[in-house]
């Protein structure tokens, strides 16, 4: 689905992504882990068109998408969420969701004045869809609240909801579980699995919570210092010497060992 070939992103002398190559299989929920500063978010930013690549290519379904802008990628079905949830703070949660599907008739100045009927029909359908999504995410009671005022975890749900408003092909989730309590995390996890199974979304997610990763992701890709360090099933990765060295740390290694010995 997504192939990244020898991607580089340099900020001056600092090589945030330094020759990363990886593949995300269609229909998978791929986890992306690595220590802070490994270049995960930068990699996301480059793939999603928020930053230009220094070198290398990104392919989507065999077609090169390097250097496309975020809104062009959106139309190809590539979506992302942010590490710190973004929202249109002055609009209600429902309006936030209704903003998403692009290419609505109301987007041209001409239709704004002369295509009222068509726009009204579209808005009605969108509104119903937005309410459906809010209900699915168990935040229907927030529909008329300003998005800027809901809690951090609820904003994360709203971000996930945004990807449900269109038929996305692949969604990049940047620490969707960070700063979210257990119950909400389970809701998010269930939603991800449901979207993956029922709607055929491919996911690639950056996560630090190993339990969450273990439950959802297969395979898991490990990044360190801008490169891909290892790839494999979550259980394998947690045993991998190099990964433990770079990311999980000695403390955990001893724990894993103790568990393995027991």
């Amino acid at each position: 689905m997504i192939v990244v070939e020898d991607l580089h992103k340099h900020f001056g002398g600092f090589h945030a992504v330094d020759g990363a190559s990886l593949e995300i299989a269609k229909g998978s929920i791929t986890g992306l882990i690595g220590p802070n500063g490994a270049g995960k978010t930068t990699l996301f930013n480059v793939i999603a068109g928020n930053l230009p690549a220094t070198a290398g290519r990104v392919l989507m379904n065999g077609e090169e998408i390097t250097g496309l802008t975020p809104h062009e990628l959106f139309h190809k079905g590539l979506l992302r969420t942010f590490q710190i949830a973004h929202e249109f703070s002055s609009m209600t949660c429902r309006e936030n969701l209704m903003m998403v599907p692009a290419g609505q008739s109301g987007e041209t100045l001409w239709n704004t004045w002369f295509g009222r009927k068509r726009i009204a029909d579209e808005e009605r359908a969108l509104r119903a869809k937005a309410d459906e999504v809010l209900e699915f995410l168990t935040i229907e009671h927030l529909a008329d609240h300003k998005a800027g005022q809901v809690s951090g975890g609820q904003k994360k749900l709203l971000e996930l909801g945004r990807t449900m408003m269109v038929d996305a092909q692949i969604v990049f989730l940047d620490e969707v579980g960070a700063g979210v309590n257990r119950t909400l995390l389970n809701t998010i996890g269930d939603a991800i699995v449901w979207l993956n199974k029922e709607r055929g979304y491919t996911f690639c997610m950056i996560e630090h919570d190993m339990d969450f990763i273990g439950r959802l992701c297969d395979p898991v890709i490990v990044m360190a210092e801008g490169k891909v360090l290892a790839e494999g099933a979550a259980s394998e990765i947690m045993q991998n010497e190099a990964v433990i060295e770079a990311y999980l740390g000695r403390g955990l290694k001893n724990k894993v060992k103790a568990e393995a010995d027991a």
Partner: protein
Amino acid sequence: MDLLNALVAFLNFVFVPGVAYGSQLALGALGVTLIYGILRFSNFAHGDTMAFGAMATILMTWWLQSLGVSLGPLPTALLALPVGIAATALLVLGTDRLVYRFYREQKAAPVILVIVSMGVMFMMNGLVRFIIGVDDQRFADGARFIITAREFKEMTGLREGLAIKSTAVLTVVVAIIVVIALFWFLNKTRTGKSMRAFSDNEDLALLSGISPERVVAITWIIVAALATIAGVLYGLDKSFKPFTYFQLLLPIFAAAIVGGLGNPLGAIAGGFIVAFSEVTITYAWKKVAGYVLPSWEPDGLVQLLSTDYKFAVSFAILIVVLLFRPTGLFRGKAV
């Protein structure tokens, strides 16, 4: 009776001019605030965009007048307005394509765009003077007054007259219509919502598939319309002289900042605050004071500031706002 005279003098010299001037500033400040909210820079060329729009409208008006077209009591300029707006929209879209887009792609800092807009300002400034000249131009026609001072005196028997210029009423009526249309557009239409979304969170707007170039183009078209309307109304009410539009930049920015940059409601409130401050501070209150306290009529003019210094009022308001409430009255973006 004296109190009534005082009231009429106040209405005639302070209130009516203040409302008309306030409407003109509000329309100008709306344009500045929209650019700030969506393109994220302070557009110094706005005053001269107004001048260009007014100029294009004037040229069209003259042509219509030469053909003998007229709107009866209304100024012919209203007929020419759509042409002026179209010409201005083409100019700003062209400028955006040639100049601003380059810096947008570089992701230039806002301060660079401000300086760039100053360059654009001088270019437009020169263009307008080159085409229509630096002198005063008259293009108002139709009825001059809705009620003249003399008619008012005869009607009411008061010593003070109340003159209401038709252009003042026209200014207020047009401003109200434009503001209602703009707010309807921003709050109710999909395009307007995309603009608000873009202003609120650019990254997210892009990720929601909103095309930045389309939002930017629509913003420029709306700004061109606002600037042209404001410029023409100001020209009808006072007179058209390229340099006055350059000077208007300061009160317009003061209005936008007082209300909170990026906040359309604030721009309107700011426009009236600046206009009324300017008019009340530079008005000679001698006459009004004389009516209210006849036994104690002052010898001086009771004028706080000579009209020559009226721009100092905008400066003072700006400094006070920036010191004590940098986000403006309506919580716009901090400057």
